[in-house]
Structure formats: structure tokens, C-alpha cells
């Protein structure tokens, strides 16, 4: 009898603890897959791209002083159920790189929900435009980053590596990835310094 009671209780608990009572449809969860940062009219513009199955990206642009402020504004004004835990790529335009590296990276490093191995790369304006047009650009960028890393393991292509290099504060700087668009997407190394940015290739 006691054993039967235990089994019934366990089954009831299993049903209760599935978390379904507090569930959200994946379409309404607003899982952010990519974020791009650009500078427009002197202000930083953060675009949050939601995870979608379609070919066309679904992005919301927020103008803010920092990523922290952008996340706050985005969740308050545009995307109530903003989830950044599945963020895969942070794409930064050349103009915005300085500000992002100084303020946003230290912020990201303190937040528990960001994945430390998410990709981080700089890009030119044309790549940014391509990124807004089709989801395929993201896949191409990731392929290029992996190729670059295989070719030159010293290049930093994720948050963790970039943050650690910045924290080390070495004078000689360190290489990060730079995506540029000609006829097709290409990748180059970019030497990043704590105070200034210098293009290598």
C-alpha cells in the first residue's frame, strides 16, 4: 500500500514538475539568435534578431548608449519575453567597435545568461546590410569564422577569448575576425588594441 502511494505521488510530481504550467510558445518566447551593433547619426543602434525558421530575419532596432540599456529598452518597449541565453553571434560594425569593446563586453561577462562561447566579430557596412536581408548571412559568417579559426588558432572569435585578451591589456594587441563583403563574404584578421583599433589586412 505504502509503495503504491509512493508510486502515485512520484507520478503526480512528475506531471507537476514538467514546467508546462509556466510554458510559453516558442514563437512568443522571442529567443534572440543574433545581435548587431551599428552607429547611426552618432548613436549606437542595437538590432535584436529573433530565432525564426524563415529566410527573412526578424529584427528590432533599439537606439541606446550601451548594450545593457538596449536590452532593458528592448524588453520594456518591444519584446516583453526577451531571451538572450541562445545568442550565437554579436556582429559589430567598425564604427561601433570601440564603444562595444569598452563598455558592452565587461557587461556581458557579468551576465549569467550569455553564452561565453558565442561568436563575436567585426564587419563592414555592406555585410551589415546583407545581414539585415537574409538569415543565410549568419550561416556564412559562422562558416568563415570557423575557417579562420582553423587557419589561425590565435584569432579570437568568441566573447570569452576577446574578453580575456582585453582584460590582459597587452600592448601588442590581439587579432579578432573581420567580415567584409565584396562579391561574397570574406574574413580577415583585425588587430584590436585596448585604446585604438588598427586594421591588419
Amino acid at each position, binding site marked *: 500500500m505504502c509503495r503504491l502511494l509512493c508510486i502515485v505521488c512520484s507520478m503526480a510530481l512528475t506531471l507537476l514538475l514538467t514546467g508546462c504550467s*509556466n510554458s510559453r510558445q516558442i514563437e512568443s518566447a522571442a529567443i534572440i539568435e543574433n545581435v548587431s551593433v551599428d552607429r547611426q547619426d552618432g548613436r549606437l543602434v542595437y538590432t535584436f534578431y529573433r530565432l525564426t525558421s524563415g529566410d527573412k530575419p526578424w529584427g528590432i532596432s533599439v537606439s541606446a548608449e550601451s548594450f545593457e540599456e538596449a536590452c532593458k529598452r528592448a524588453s520594456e518597449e518591444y519584446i516583453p519575453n526577451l531571451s538572450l541565453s541562445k545568442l550565437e553571434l554579436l556582429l559589430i560594425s567598425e564604427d561601433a567597435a570601440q564603444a562595444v569593446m569598452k563598455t558592452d563586453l565587461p557587461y556581458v561577462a*557579468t551576465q*549569467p545568461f550569455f553564452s*561565453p562561447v558565442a561568436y563575436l566579430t567585426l564587419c563592414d557596412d555592406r555585410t551589415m546590410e546583407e545581414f539585415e536581408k537574409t538569415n543565410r548571412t549568419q550561416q556564412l559568417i559562422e562558416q568563415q569564422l570557423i575557417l579562420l579559426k582553423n587557419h589561425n588558432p590565435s584569432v579570437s572569435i568568441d566573447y570569452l577569448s576577446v574578453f580575456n585578451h582585453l*582584460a590582459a591589456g597587452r600592448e601588442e594587441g590581439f587579432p579578432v575576425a573581420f567580415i567584409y563583403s565584396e562579391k561574397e563574404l570574406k574574413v580577415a584578421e583585425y588587430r584590436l588594441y585596448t585604446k585604438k583599433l588598427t586594421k591588419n589586412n
Partner: protein
Amino acid sequence: MPIETPFSSKRFLLALMLAACSVILLQNNSLSKNSSFLFELACMAAGLLICFLCFIPALMLRKMRGADILRLSTRSPAFIKLPVAVFYACYFVYTALYFLIPYTDMFHSKYYPGVSPCLITVVLLGCCVYAAVKGVNVVTRFGIFLFLFAMLTNILMFGGNLTALELTASSVSWQGNAGDFWQNTRYFLTPAFIAVVFACLNADIRNFRLRQPVCALFFTGLKYAAVLFFIRFAVGAYASRQEYPTFVLSRTAHFDRFAGVESFYLALATMSVFMIISLLLCCVTKAIDREKNLRTVILFTLILLAAYTVSAYLHSAKEILTNPNIFIIFTGIAALLPLSGLIMGRKSNVPTLVHSM
């Protein structure tokens, strides 16, 4: 008198080793940020050496009297029996909370912020009650499964970070002062609680060899060293910005495009804490009343739950319950208490226990 069921000391020490290893999983920036890796290793060696010294009183008692402190105290007069039972019961409740609070905090903040920490505690304690009622023998059997799972998790955690390792000239530097030494060593003294569990349960184990606790602490040290090494050289400065660096280590583990083994890490932490609390509840049962097992376990589980709820709403209570200094002092007294058993034994001339198979 209840029938004793002696069990393998290897299995028991394996369970204690896993309990000791879990301490590093719940590490929340407890180590000094100014110390170097080699300095941390030295602190770890010092801490684990003291942990081994904590085993000695219980080993002496076992060798000379063939019993543990709780068994001796139950055969002593009430004025000895009562304070010993109360002290150990308080110690085990405190220790259970010392691990339960950081675990639920971690689970709540890192994995599932949507659920109430009290609910996590209720579910975990419910499982612990079942295990504690079944007894130490069953809990140590679970340790075999946990050992294999821990092996798998560690392989994934360390193997997935191998490519991110970055050894520099500072890897072999020596940096740290007396304050850092105390802070780090105090943290590495935390596994000493396994010596107290051993002191309270060692009369029930057979085939005991002195090398077993040595091996348990040696492998605990190896695990700590590996975790510290990977945190230092694979995660780097990023780890110091985050709570729970070992959690970050599990997140950064990656194999090609597959990244993050935090689910394995959380499962391991959950099962380890479950085993620690179950073992502690077994010890409480033995300290208080060995014949009414279920009632005692439920009573102390309710006490644990009440204390946890108080700590969740009262920050000062939480600070007391997770204070490492109080924990170390408490553990030191609990580990040294078996020495008094030697005197008690001589005076009362307690007969040596004969195990029945």
C-alpha cells in the same frame, strides 16, 4: 537492539570522496583573486592535509575501541549521551544547510529562475528522506552510479576545454600573501566534513584500510587541481567576473559546434548535494534515535526546511548558515570529539563491537 549491516569501506569512502569533490562544484568566488595557480595548489595541499588530520581521532577510536563516537556515546550515561547527540545533530543540520543554500541559489540563479527556491528544496529534501530512511548502505550504492556519472561529466568538462587552454609565462608564477593563504586554505578545509561523517559511521564498515581515506582525499585534490587549472587557463579572467566559475567551465566546454555541458554539471551538482544531505540525515538518525528511523528523518528534514525558509527571508540568518568560519570551527570540534571517546571508553570499558554479517 537493531541488526547492524556492515558494508564495504571502499564504497563508503567512494561516497565520501564524491561528497568532498562536490565542494568545488558549488564554489562561488571563494578563492582569493590575487593568488596564482601554484599558490592555490599549495593552499589546497595544506587544506587537504588538515582534512586528513581530521580523520585521525576517528581512526584511533576505531582501532582502539572498535566503535565510533556515536555508538560509544549511546552506551554512556545520559549526561554524556545527550550533549554529544545534541552537538552532532546541530552539526549535521548546519552542514546540510551549508550545502543546501548555495546549491539552491545556484540552481535558481543559473538554471531555472522561474521556480521558487523553496520548491527546489522541498523536492530535493523529499528524495533525501527516502534515501536516508533506506540507510547509508543504499546511499553508498548510489555513489557507484554517481562516480560513473561524475567521470563522464568531468571528461566532457575538461575535454571540451582542452582546445581553449592558453598557458602563458604567468602559469608558473607564485603570487599570494598570508591573507590569501588563509582565505584559500579555509575554503579547501570544507571537505573536512567527510571526516566527521566517517567518525560517526565508521563502526558499520568492514575491510577498512588506512589508504582508503588517503586515496579519497588524494583524488579529491586531483579533481580540485584539474578544475582550478581549467578555470585559470581555459576560462581565464572571464571566470572571475561570474558567480560559480565551475558552472562557466561547463558552459565553455565545446566539441566542434556542440557547446555547453551545463546540464551535466547541474545534474552532477544536484546528485552530489542529494548524497551529502542523505548521508548527513543518516548520521543525524544515528546520533538521535536509531530505532525510529523514519520519524527522526522526517523531523530533521522539517527542521532543515524551516531553517532554509528562514534563511530565504532573513539575510542575516543566511549569512550565519553559510559562514565558512563557523563551519570550520564546528567541523574542527566535531572531528576532534572522538578523542574524548578514548577516555570515555577506558572509563566505561565499552566492549568492542562485533559485526554480524
